[in-house]
């Protein structure tokens, strides 16, 4: 199944470059001088304990939380320096799936019409187009399109999480920041979503920043990973390297705490 318009392939290019990014809430530095790059066709995992600043970093990159210093460049353009008009035009290419889907979905709108709305506004889809692509998008994330008329509170936690993913994908972003996108999903639904996201990265060359506290997810799908601790990225490297030879003591502790179950 494929719910997107054309644009197969695409170049491998630097999508995002973050330099010395610092985010403060009052005096508290939630993100401290963070540097990283993300290319199209690449999955970068971001792991770390709760409160380490993962979500704040993701939000700051998309301009949803103001940052105090540093820069964020999307396709070479510095987001802080763009005019509002240019920024708004660029904005749909960068999508975020939020950690708490209840907070990001409008309680007064059925989930189907929420997805159709972004299709009409961003993709200028006609009503019929929006309707069929919305249905396709729900099925793509493993939901029955019969759920379209339900309101967010009428869905289970995992159903809501997948609606949020479908809405973010509906506008065909170049960059997707997914904050704990599978935390509320059962094993099979999680595997389905991870397979879908990996497919979009491989085939359509989107760039994916995958924020999660689930290390096994990062190990399975990410190409590279960064470990965050108290606002800083304390270790980066290929997934193989981090798992086989974690250099930082905190990373070692993190890996040791993973609940193990093997058949």
């Amino acid at each position, binding site marked *: 199944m494929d719910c997107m318009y054309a644009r197969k392939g695409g170049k491998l290019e630097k999508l995002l470059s973050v330099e010395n990014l610092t985010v403060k809430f009052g005096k508290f530095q939630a993100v401290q001088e963070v540097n990283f790059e993300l290319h199209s066709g690449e999955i970068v995992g971001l792991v770390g304990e709760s409160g380490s600043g993962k979500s704040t970093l993701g939000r700051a990159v998309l301009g949803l939380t103001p940052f105090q210093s540093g820069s964020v460049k999307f396709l070479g353009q510095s987001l802080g320096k763009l005019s509002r008009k240019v920024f708004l035009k660029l904005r749909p290419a960068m999508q975020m799936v939020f950690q708490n889907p209840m907070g990001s979905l409008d309680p007064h709108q059925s989930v189907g019409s929420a997805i159709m709305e972004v299709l009409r506004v961003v993709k200028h889809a006609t009503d019929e187009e929006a309707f069929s692509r919305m249905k396709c998008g729900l099925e793509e994330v493993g939901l029955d399109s*019969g759920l379209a008329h339900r309101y967010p509170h009428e869905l289970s936690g995992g159903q809501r999480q997948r609606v949020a993913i479908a809405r973010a994908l509906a506008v065909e972003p170049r960059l997707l920041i997914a904050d704990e996108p599978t935390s509320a999903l059962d*094993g099979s*639904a*999680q595997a389905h979503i991870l397979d879908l996201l990996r497919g979009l990265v491989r085939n359509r060359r989107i760039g994916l920043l995958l924020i999660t506290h689930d290390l096994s997810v990062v190990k*399975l799908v990410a190409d590279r990973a960064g470990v965050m601790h108290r606002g800083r990225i304390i270790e980066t490297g290929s997934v193989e390297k981090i798992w086989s030879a974690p250099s930082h003591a905190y990373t070692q502790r993190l890996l040791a*705490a993973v609940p193990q*179950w093997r058949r």
Partner: protein
Amino acid sequence: MKRLEVRGLQIGFQTDQGWIPAVRDLSFDLGVGEILGIAGESGSGKSALALALMGLLPSNTQVRGKVLFQGGDLLQNNAESWRKIRGSKMAMIFQDPMSSLHPYLRIGDQIIEPLLIHGLANPKQAREQALACLAEMGISDPKTMLQQYPHECSGGMRQRAVIAMAVLAKPDLLIADEPTTALDVTTQREVLIWMQKWIRASGASLVFISHDVGVLSEMADQLMVMYLGQGVERGSLVEVLKRPHHPYTDGLLRSLPAMQDRNAKHFYSLAGHVPPGGSIPSGCSFHPRCPAVQDLCRTTEQMLEINQERWTACMRAKEGSWKSS
């Protein structure tokens, strides 16, 4: 000894499109001091079950069946009887700690509230118990924390506040719906170890809902797996994880990240998706997605009791196994 007996539980939600059956004819027991893990398909009715046990379902709901707890049927409770036992004899821990914490009240006042409401302690005793409990859970400065507002605490601290609020009144039944999904693995481990110790020491029983099989495997004694509103398998944790009798359980375990091949073209997952509420497949409700489906499965459903503690909703589990097919 039994703590909770659920018999023929049915839960339906009324929506614009008609009734959605969320839980269908579910029966199970929970022993005294037992930790029952519940895993299952997203949307299979786990949260609906938890809310029903606590009498917290929204008003657009219909509930039938029996839930026997301490000599009475919880489903016959009126508002007054619920108020009496909720927070004292039974308590719930939700996935999102913010949903059980009031943003404008100090953490301390909220934690001790159940103790005060049920007259189990005076404010001074309650505060002392709260301090001790938070310290035991690894909060380094519990005194300061009691004075703080929820937004001033990290997710891990808030989750521990919610757990303290649930356990201080020493309930006999604790229900936790994905209590640690928001936590990182290190904090999660601390919290889980503490909860397990608390259950063992207090003799309370715990219903523990989680998608994380790794967490369940470290936490639970018994495991029940749900699919489309029904329990499809139940047994001791070790038994179910080692030798799943139901193809859904098998698929669930095989699709875990640690079981997947990173280099595979596609990850393993169960094909198809759960039908929308309302339309329940005939026969075994898993048959449209079952990799081992046979003709009989399309028309007939059957519960197989392997022994008192072990049952499955796959009739083919008896003939040795569906796994060979």
